[in-house]
């Protein structure tokens, strides 16, 4: 693990920017591409200051033209640049999906390994601000389903920084999914001189003997809240932050579940055909003999995200939903 040195607390969104900046300082081939990422600093101000530091050649504003600029980033990645391309909302995958589905993910394989695609697609999700059904989706399962892509979903300030640096250094297309409701969270940056984490290493956030909660992104903090509440009832939950869905750290998950005998997978995305189903299946296939209860999935119901604040709040899984999932797992003998 990296050590904390910069003692000034920074926000999750600053950590993302600092991660990009650190790699841009160290590697002239890293460039930033997206809508309003330049002098205006991005719609959430995540990239503020990068244009001033690195200039218009390496920090490029684009038209609202995702297929062209994501596609161009794919072509640029194949020919010498390491683009970090911003897809403003994860929902906008829909307008440029071919560039990930059929291009970035497959061109290395189809050329027998002659091409590499060191590309980061930065995007963000995070329902809860009445953004409506086209600006609220957690679509990680869709990209994780495509061989050739990696999928990273940082939950903390430290990871936002480290995993961004690791994603930029990775020689593969990485979909780096931020959660906008974490943008204001404060924490400490790791030492920029240290090698960033490698992708695919989960983190045990809380130890516990009774049940394993497997989660990622903003659901990590909600799972910790659930675990604290459950502790009052004498249930000790272990919380694992996967950090990345692809690669997925099966080892850490399975080791935990073999100890606890119970597992809950918690994510913000809708439950059916989600990443929770994949993780539940892996646990069942690999640790069936250790299981004392069926693996429980916690997530959103299969509906488009409603706009009206009370409806939306009731649709997004919260700490209580995670706790309810744990109780369900505990109830089974």
């Amino acid at each position, binding site marked *: 693990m990296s050590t904390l040195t910069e003692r000034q607390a920074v926000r999750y969104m600053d950590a993302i920017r600092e991660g990009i900046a650190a790699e841009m300082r160290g590697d002239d*081939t890293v*460039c930033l591409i997206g809508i309003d990422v330049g002098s205006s600093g991005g719609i959430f101000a995540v990239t503020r200051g990068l244009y001033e530091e690195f200039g218009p*050649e*390496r920090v*490029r504003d*684009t*038209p609202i*033209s995702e*297929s*062209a*600029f*994501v*596609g*161009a*980033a*794919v*072509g*640029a*990645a*194949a*020919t*010498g*640049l390491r*683009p970090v391309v911003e897809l403003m909302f994860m929902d906008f995958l829909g307008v440029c999906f*071919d*560039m990930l589905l*059929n*291009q970035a993910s497959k*061109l*290395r*394989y*189809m*050329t*027998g*390994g*002659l*091409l*590499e*695609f*060191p590309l980061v697609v930065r995007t963000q999700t995070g329902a809860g601000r009445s953004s409506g059904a086209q600006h609220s989706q957690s679509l990680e399962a869709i990209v994780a389903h495509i*061989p*050739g892509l*990696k999928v990273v979903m940082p939950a903390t300030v430290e990871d936002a920084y480290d995993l961004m640096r690791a994603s930029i250094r990775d*020689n*593969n297309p990485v979909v780096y999914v931020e959660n906008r409701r974490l943008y204001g969270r404060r924490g400490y940056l790791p030492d920029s001189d240290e090698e960033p984490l490698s992708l695919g290493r989960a983190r045990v956030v809380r130890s516990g003997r009774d049940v394993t909660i497997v989660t990622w992104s903003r659901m990590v903090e909600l799972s910790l809240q659930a675990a604290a509440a459950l502790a009052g009832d004498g249930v000790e939950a272990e919380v694992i932050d996967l950090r990345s869905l692809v690669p997925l750290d099966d080892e850490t998950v399975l080791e935990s579940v073999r100890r606890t005998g119970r597992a809950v997978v918690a994510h913000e995305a809708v439950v059916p055909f989600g990443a929770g189903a994949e993780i539940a299946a892996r646990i069942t296939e690999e640790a069936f003999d250790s299981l004392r209860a069926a693996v429980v999935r916690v997530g959103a119901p299969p509906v488009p995200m409603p706009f009206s604040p009370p409806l939306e709040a009731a649709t997004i899984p919260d700490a209580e939903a995670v706790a309810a999932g744990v109780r369900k797992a505990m109830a089974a003998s």
Partner: protein
Amino acid sequence: MALQAHEKTRLIELFARMCLIRAFEQRVSSLYREAEIPGFIHTSLGQEAVAVGVCAALRDEDWIATTHRGHGHCLAKGADVDGAMAELFGKATGLCKGKGGSMHIADPRKGILGANAIVGASLPLATGAALSSHVLGRDEVTVAFFGEGAANQGVFHEALNLAAIWQLPVLFVCENNGYAEFTDSRTMSRRESVAALGHAYGVRSAAVDGNDVEAVFAVAEDAVDGCRSGDGPVLLEAATYRWQGHYEGDPQTYKPVEEAEAWLARDPLLLARGRIEAQELSSAAELDEIVRDAEARVARAEEFARSSPYPDNAEIFTDVYAD
């Protein structure tokens, strides 16, 4: 007007390169019908002059991105004939270890980013390659080949616009062969031409007889020079004709016989040959020798492909991710 010596040589070289593509595509067509080559095959028979004329204007380090109908472009850019044929056979000695096939044939070592089976994908990918050249200060030009059918895809318009605002060194080459799959392209758009769309995006445009290899070369050379000197992208529309169906085996009931015959009479190889003979740049015997050499080269490639092994099953799992 007397031709310069290098111009005489060039026309013969262009003819020879077209003969190689013609021989390759004709043999591939037969091999596919005989079920020797698997998958889908889209030949470029009749369109050889576009591939050869454009690629002759490029340097080794320049890039091309192409389409499902891309064998000719790859050979014109210098792809190894043996490796290309073996790739179509799905053999381990193929350019892409047999993992791409006809629709995904590529050789980045020769500046070939690859064929692509998604209509229109070559345009944004080529725009990105041109972005690399621009940002990294490399004196390269990228060509995106695409068909007129792709001009109805959103990425055509998006890529032109992006390349224009960034003034990237990319040449968009539309091979207008008249048909988008089974459909007469004129029935699918009311535009006057594909080239006319360039003006809408502030992209310099030109139209050329795509069956006249010298004309294609001349306009491509001018466009490539402009790209290389920083004048931004160019859209070139080359009028040509797809002799065969959309795919190998397509019965082509949708094509008027007279139309097909008229275009066959404008065979780009015959046009070039006629010009060579009229200008007495070479003898008929020498030109016949070029044709025979091309056929012999393709026959050797076929033998190479046939005698090559299939990839080991372990290859299923390699090249998904880079280290």
